[in-house]
């Protein structure tokens, strides 16, 4: 009964999504208030029914209803409760449900927090959001219904993929999707502005907080994924450049460019058509990510052959959605010429470089990700593009971006006034270089260009980011949340850069064969293998190794890596043991039994790796702070502030 209720709720949600888009868009077009006023209640109703459907699916998982095909395929009666909830989005059908739920949450937030916006504008925004929702609901109901029954019911379930039975990966999809789907709001604002034929600074001010919050979630989501891959896959890497990761990283790059370009549009009314295009790109790349990951068109052509209907459907939806927006763009954007100029060295020019470099980075990744598909399509053979390509090409736009960041933060709008700042900035750079050199020589005893450049850039960005908040605090001046947020986020970029430079330049990875009683030394640490014993978990059996890690005779930590076999899927899993530190991680993973009591063991020394995720946390925190700025708070006014007024209230 519950699954049928969920299925029915999903159908009702689709009807409401249709009403939302038709009445919203047609109402705004014909300027009928009574039609437009349907959009908001339709959003609320849609949210209720989507939440109900999602709740029904969750209830089927919690109640171990193995007569539901999707539950039987992805859960098991021995699966712990927490993972039974996480299993809801453990596979294709459920992730779509999550996508739709997140979209309806964003929609209801937009509907609730947009009372101060013009009626026709918000009706169009909700209309476009309704169209997106209609597409996804139709897709789910037509090709990927999670409520299908299984006859006869399964005795027990297939269990959740053991790789996904992990805290970080259980919370990773909801957070990542919140980011992905959040760009739908920026996209809808852009489409509404183009339909409305109105694109001013007020528009940029409405769009900015939504975009920043979506970007913040995406940042955290990607960082969680990276952290999970680090400790769960057993390889100790933090980024693999695989298509799934790239699919989440490309919208992030486009979103980062969008945040910066929106700043220019809000403050100076420039870059308008470019900002529109970026808003379309950010969401298109999110959709493309969903398409690539879900259709399997890239990852494995083979597994895809089983269900071509899904791929064709997503592709058609993608084409309509992005194609529609780009057609609108080609129609409206030519009228959006900007007249105001700016000097080289002004903030506008730095943000222009920022945008160009971020878009180049995203394009290079897109090219690498799609290249195998093009080659195959042109019958030039099947090839795969690996991490060496991405690592090399990604540095090309990123190094200048980091170098410009240190200066750009202090630039001023319109005119170049960098001459006054030359001295403190150069001093900061020299200080950063000296500090980096000292750190490299004393801590690692070995100079590599990568480490030196990376640490210098990271430290310089940190100094640069701290300059404004520290001087404002010392002189007891107020600090607007948006400026503080910018400083925190850029501080995070510095921390992140230091982490990447440290781990890439000085990591040590060693695969050794050890018998109990033997030990191995790495980076001044002594790893003594004590032996293995069996451990039983709730739905797995494991062999647990024991390693005493000592440094100069003093015990640092006892590490217990596991090799798990999950009972239902009989899939062996490596649970690495990691000791976390401010300067390094020590990582031990158990490999295979080599015969007798010897084991192959992978031991890694990862300097500064925590700073990678810490940097991402700061970036997200900065986003949150900036989005909380007072000028984004909804104010009840009859009409929006005229554009000229906004420039007058400029913050530095």
């Amino acid at each position: 009964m519950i699954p049928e209720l969920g299925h029915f709720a999903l159908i009702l949600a689709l009807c409401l999504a249709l009403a939302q888009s038709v009445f919203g868009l047609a109402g705004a077009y014909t300027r009928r208030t009574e039609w437009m006023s349907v959009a908001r209640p339709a959003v609320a109703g849609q949210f209720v029914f989507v939440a109900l459907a999602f709740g029904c699916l969750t209830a089927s998982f919690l109640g171990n209803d193995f007569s539901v095909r999707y539950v039987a395929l992805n859960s098991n009666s021995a699966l712990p409760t927490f993972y039974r909830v996480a299993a809801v989005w453990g596979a294709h059908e459920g992730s779509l449900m999550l996508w739709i739920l997140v979209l309806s949450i964003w929609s209801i937030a937009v509907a609730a927090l947009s009372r101060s916006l013009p009626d026709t504008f918000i009706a169009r925004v909700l209309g476009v959001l309704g169209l997106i929702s209609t597409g996804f609901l139709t897709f789910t109901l037509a090709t990927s219904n999670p409520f299908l029954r299984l006859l006869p019911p399964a005795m027990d379930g297939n269990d959740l993929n053991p790789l996904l039975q992990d805290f970080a990966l259980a919370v990773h999809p909801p957070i990542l999707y919140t980011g992905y789907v959040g760009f739908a709001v920026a996209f809808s604002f852009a489409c509404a502005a183009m339909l409305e034929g109105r694109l001013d600074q007020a528009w940029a001010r409405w769009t900015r907080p939504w975009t920043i919050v979506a970007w913040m979630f995406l940042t955290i989501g990607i960082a969680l994924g990276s952290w999970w891959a680090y400790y769960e896959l057993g390889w100790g890497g933090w980024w693999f450049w695989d298509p799934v990761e790239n699919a989440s990283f490309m919208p992030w790059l486009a979103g980062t460019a969008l945040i910066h370009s929106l700043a220019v549009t809000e403050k100076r009314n420039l870059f308008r058509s470019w900002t529109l295009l970026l808003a379309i790109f950010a969401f298109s790349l999110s959709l493309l990510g969903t398409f690539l990951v879900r259709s399997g068109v890239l990852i494995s052509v083979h597994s895809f052959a089983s269900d071509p209907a899904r791929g064709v459907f997503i592709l058609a939806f993608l084409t309509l959605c992005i194609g529609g927006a780009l057609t609108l763009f080609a129609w409206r954007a030519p009228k959006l010429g900007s007249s105001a100029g700016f000097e080289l060295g002004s903030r506008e020019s730095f943000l222009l470089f920022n945008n160009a470099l971020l878009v180049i980075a995203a394009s290079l990744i897109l090219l690498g990700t799609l290249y195998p598909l093009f080659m195959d399509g042109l019958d030039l053979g099947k090839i795969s593009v690996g991490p060496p390509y991405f690592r090399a090409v990604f540095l090309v736009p990123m190094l200048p971006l980091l170098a410009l960041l240190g200066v750009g933060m202090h630039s001023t709008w319109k005119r170049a006034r960098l001459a006054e700042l030359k001295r403190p900035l150069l001093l900061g750079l020299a200080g950063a270089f000296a500090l980096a050199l000292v750190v490299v020589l004393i801590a690692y005893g070995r100079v590599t260009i990568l480490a030196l450049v990376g640490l210098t850039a990271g430290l310089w960005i940190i100094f640069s980011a701290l300059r404004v908040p520290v001087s404002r605090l010392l002189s007891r001046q107020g600090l607007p949340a948006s400026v503080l947020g910018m400083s925190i986020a850029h501080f995070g970029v510095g921390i992140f850069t230091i982490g990447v430079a440290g781990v890439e330049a000085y990591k040590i990875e060693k695969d050794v064969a050890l018998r109990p009683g033997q030990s191995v030394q790495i980076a001044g640490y002594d790893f003594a293998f004590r032996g293995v014993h069996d451990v039983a978990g709730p739905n797995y059996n494991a062999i647990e190794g024991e390693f005493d890690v000592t440094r100069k005779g003093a015990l640092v930590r006892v590490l217990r890596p596991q090799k798990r076999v999950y009972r239902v899927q009989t899939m062996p899993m490596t649970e690495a043991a990691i000791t976390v530190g401010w300067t390094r991680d020590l990582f031990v993973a158990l490999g295979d039994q080599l015969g007798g009591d010897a084991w192959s063991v992978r031991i890694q020394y990862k300097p500064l790796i925590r700073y990678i995720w810490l940097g991402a946390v700061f970036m997200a925190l900065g986003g949150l702070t900036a989005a909380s700025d007072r000028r984004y708070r909804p104010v009840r006014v009859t009409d929006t502030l005229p554009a000229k007024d906004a420039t007058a209230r400029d913050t530095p």
Partner: protein
Amino acid sequence: MWRYLLPLAGLAILVVFFFFGLQREPGTIPSPLIGKPAPSFSLPSVDNPAQSVSNADYRGRMYVLNVWGTWCIGCREEHAALLAIAHTSAVPFVGLNWKDERPLAIQWLKELGNPYTACAFDADGRVGIDWGVYGAPETFLVDANGVVIHKHIAPLTEEIWQRDFLPRIRAASKAAP
């Protein structure tokens, strides 16, 4: 103002590629090998380098050649079905471990079960090239005269086995007494 149409043109190109990418269902591409003698091979066995596996060992018998690798997700997907089919099938299953590492392959067979009567180790992928393999998993059916009579690309399932393989096996064993 043509430049404002450029993004749309870019999208159109992408869509065309995606569309054909989706249509290229590899199973529909006929193998040039069908109806031709199977390329001969003699390779070391996966579990014992000293032992060799050759298709000459199967002269006069029908056999299935399954191409796999531990790096291949599709192979993991089909493995349970492969075990079940090989267990009940009268036709021997020969494995071709393709572009793989020996310890990983041994580990795989130990942990997931071994459906093969013999498994050859094709580290550099030469034999794979001879057989026209361009992705794993692929499964070939060779008749008693050493002629390839069917090729399946993508993970094998019980349904596919019953639909595509069994009728051919029955027909071929009737033809050759």
